[in-house]
């Protein structure tokens, strides 16, 4: 079978290992991931802070291209891209005038027929039902599942998981053989874009997350967002200097953890690309 694939900028750059692991897991289940041709930026945080129409036109173009390519379902692993694409579908379905303005600007037909899946939804729908018997090396570790802000918010649009105490990653990791811990920072802010401009703030915010995960005995942090990953992994020096101790708990994408449980090659999952060595 074939699913559409929208990588977004991160999966082509700083989080190549996320893309690699998504594709590796998909391949293991004979799912063909077809990248959307000529895709563009989702608009990220910048667009919707400046111009609403632009912030909808950019994701709408991606969705139009997917329609043109004959795709009915597209997988969007980045939580920020997923949020933008889903919000766009929601806004355009509510406001015909806006839809016309956006399609005119793009010069592409848009019907809203493509459904957008985040990585958890994709795994839930196509991987976990067939997981039985495929787990060769259970991910037998205590894990802290970290959802960040965008995967589950805003609830009234995404209608995915529950906002304050999400469970979907925990359930997936349980199926992969892990022991998800009960902890308090599942949806706290990692510092997001301050990664570049105010690294010390990220050290503090992400520090609280890593600190609590450590205090509660987590051996790995599981994420589903490139931004979360880069802050918790790449900014570990800032985190450690905020906490005043050296914490080496690795941060894995959900697809990397599942890939390990499936016995996939560590390099194919991109585990060597992390700043904090993945020793699990």
């Amino acid at each position, binding site marked *: 079978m074939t699913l559409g694939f929208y990588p977004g900028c991160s999966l082509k750059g700083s989080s190549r290992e996320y893309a690699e692991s998504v594709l590796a897991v998909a391949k293991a289940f004979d799912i063909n991931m077809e990248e959307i041709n000529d895709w563009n930026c989702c608009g990220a945080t910048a667009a919707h802070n400046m111009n609403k129409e632009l912030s909808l036109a950019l994701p709408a173009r991606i969705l139009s291209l997917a329609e043109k390519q004959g795709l009915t379902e597209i997988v969007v692993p980045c939580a920020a891209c997923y949020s933008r694409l889903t919000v766009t579908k929601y806004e355009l379905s509510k406001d015909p005038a806006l839809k016309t303005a956006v399609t005119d600007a793009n010069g592409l037909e848009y019907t809203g027929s493509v459904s957008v899946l985040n990585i958890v939804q994709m795994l839930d729908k196509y991987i976990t039902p067939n997981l039985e018997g495929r787990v060769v090396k259970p991910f037998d570790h205590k894990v802290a599942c970290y959802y960040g802000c965008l995967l589950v918010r805003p*609830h009234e649009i995404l209608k995915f998981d529950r906002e304050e105490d999400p469970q979907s990653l925990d359930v997936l990791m349980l199926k992969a053989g892990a022991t998800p811990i009960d902890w308090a920072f599942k949806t706290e802010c990692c510092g997001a874009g301050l990664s570049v401009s105010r690294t010390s703030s990220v050290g503090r915010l992400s520090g609280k997350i890593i600190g609590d995960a450590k*205090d509660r005995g987590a051996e790995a942090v599981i994420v589903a967002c490139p931004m979360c990953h880069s802050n918790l992994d790449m900014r570990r020096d800032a985190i450690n200097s905020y906490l005043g101790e050296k914490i080496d708990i690795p941060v894995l994408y959900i697809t990397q953890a599942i890939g390990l449980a499936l016995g996939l090659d560590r390099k194919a999952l991109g585990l060597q690309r992390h700043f904090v060595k993945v020793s699990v």
Partner: protein
Amino acid sequence: MSKIGVFVCHCGENISATVDCAKVAETAGNYDGVAYSVDYKYMCSDPGQNLIKSAIKEKGLTGVVVASCSPRMHEPTFRKACAEAGLNPFMCEMANLREHCSWVHEKGEATTEKAIDLVRILVEKVKYNHSLSEIKVPVTKTALVIGGGIAGIQASLDIANTGHKVILIERDPSIGGHMSQLSETFPTLDCSQCILTPRMVEVAQHPNITLYTYAELESLEGFIGNFKAKIRRKSKSLDEKLCTGCGLCTTKCPAKKIPSEFNEGLGKRTAIYVPFPQAVPNKPVIDRINCTYYIKGKCKICEIVCPTGAIRFDQEDQIMEVEVGAIVIATGFTVKQPDFFPEYGFGKYPDVITGLQFERLASASGPTLGEIRRPSDGKIPEKIVFLACAGSRDPAKGIPYCSKICCMYIAKHAMLYQHKVHGGKSYVFYMDIRAGGKMYEEFVRRAIEDDGVNYIRGRVSRIYEKNGKLIVDGADTLLNAMPVEIEADMVVLATAGVANEGAEELAQKLHISYDPYKFFAEAHPKLKPVETNTAGIFLAGACQAPRDIPESVAMASGAAVKVAGLFSQDELTREPIIAVVNRQAPPVYSSCVGCFLCISTCPYQAIEKEEIKNRNGEVIKSMAKVNPGLCQGCGTCVAFCRTKSIDIQGYTHEQMYTEVMALLNEY
């Protein structure tokens, strides 16, 4: 030939701003049968009414159309004016130019045209109006009060003291409601039970009040003055006449670990229990779900120890039918439990409690005998945090309204904590302090200034446990949203006040309306706060919206006066807008063919079979007959009647067709 008067009202500018009233009056004046047509600024004013009265007398009008507001507002006014001028009041009709036209359309010719059409319809209708007379119905001078909290207690006592009978039913084993659970009350800090229990005793002893606890409304039929209520008296497994309330059974019952509802789960009770020492009636009930005998088939220790042999294991629920003339609903409210708040621990942390639970901790009759001790380990909390607006004023949680009582009880809680735990630190996170009430603001200031409670304006995003402490993460919005982190020993959530369990079901049984939050709807938000849209059914207390004690009591007394007013009459008059089956001269008698489909569709059981007999007593025709005392004029039978033999008086087939034809300009 009809002589109809048309009276077009400007309603100040409410109608005339968008409708050309003079033109409406002028056009109407040219219709066949219209003898007089005029427009006036305020038709409901005395001069306006006099205009109608003098026209009736001088022109000999046979029908009146007042083109003004909704008949809900002024139909009684204008009908009365007509009656005073000697015209049957049911010869007066109203065209709703305000709500149906001027308020909802822009100024313009089309709007005036619509107004003209509305008048035209009624002019044609009124030609087919008949003189009708009001229906008299008797009043059963007994009130049913549902709910035995402070509102129900007050309403019952007030009605009973006017000399009328009251039946008070309460779902729980004792009356008293939430007020009996409270420790002290704001803004005077007087003990809640001390002021409540005398009223409870008075209810039990009042000769005019019949109290049924452990009882619920099963169903309700009838109408104002003449309700028939079925009450389910749940089995107490006890012969109340024999029970002396000695309490031996409750001390010997082996099932001792059942969370006590009265103590909000913080204390335990037995399976046969009296909810609290001052309960009225002070006689136990057996909670069958938790009773060893009902679960395992053996035990019966209570039966063995009972000195009077009052235990009845085989007692069944009783359904009792009572006739009442009015109903006061006082079923109260409940509060959201901590499991509604994933961000505050999702009910996981035993030391995150609700305000109602704190009341039990602070109460001398509570599980800690009034000492503030946290539920997890019984330690006295050195730092305590109170969270206002837990759920309230939060559209994302589906509760956009203010629960109203929390600001005050939080100030009281913090104050009680400071009085009881010397050297303890208390914090209150709040959005706004809403202390509108006599001595309320002063009370809050006292908590802050005299008792040193730390008020922090901001919300709490998360509570989590770390090293045995509850970490409360919040923000201080008066300090530029600076993050605040408090390591607390206990947290009290002022969880939103919400409609009681079963409110929706009860509203449907009573045929009253309720709001989106399942609070019962008053008939008018300002002018009819204790009435419902169903005549004869009144509201008191927090079943209508979150209310504090003084408001509940005031509302209850208000409802009681309404009931007393109703009971001051021997007969009620009802509008004759009811169904009638047509009668014709013999040998036809009626076009009714006796299919009796109407009987099966009537929701009020108001239709019966009538047999027409000849001189020899032989039945020659069997047809439907409407009981005017029971018919509510809903019209369901009219829609079902296949021979069109039933009409609603004032809304006959003839009148309806005429209205439609008038709209189609067929006249």
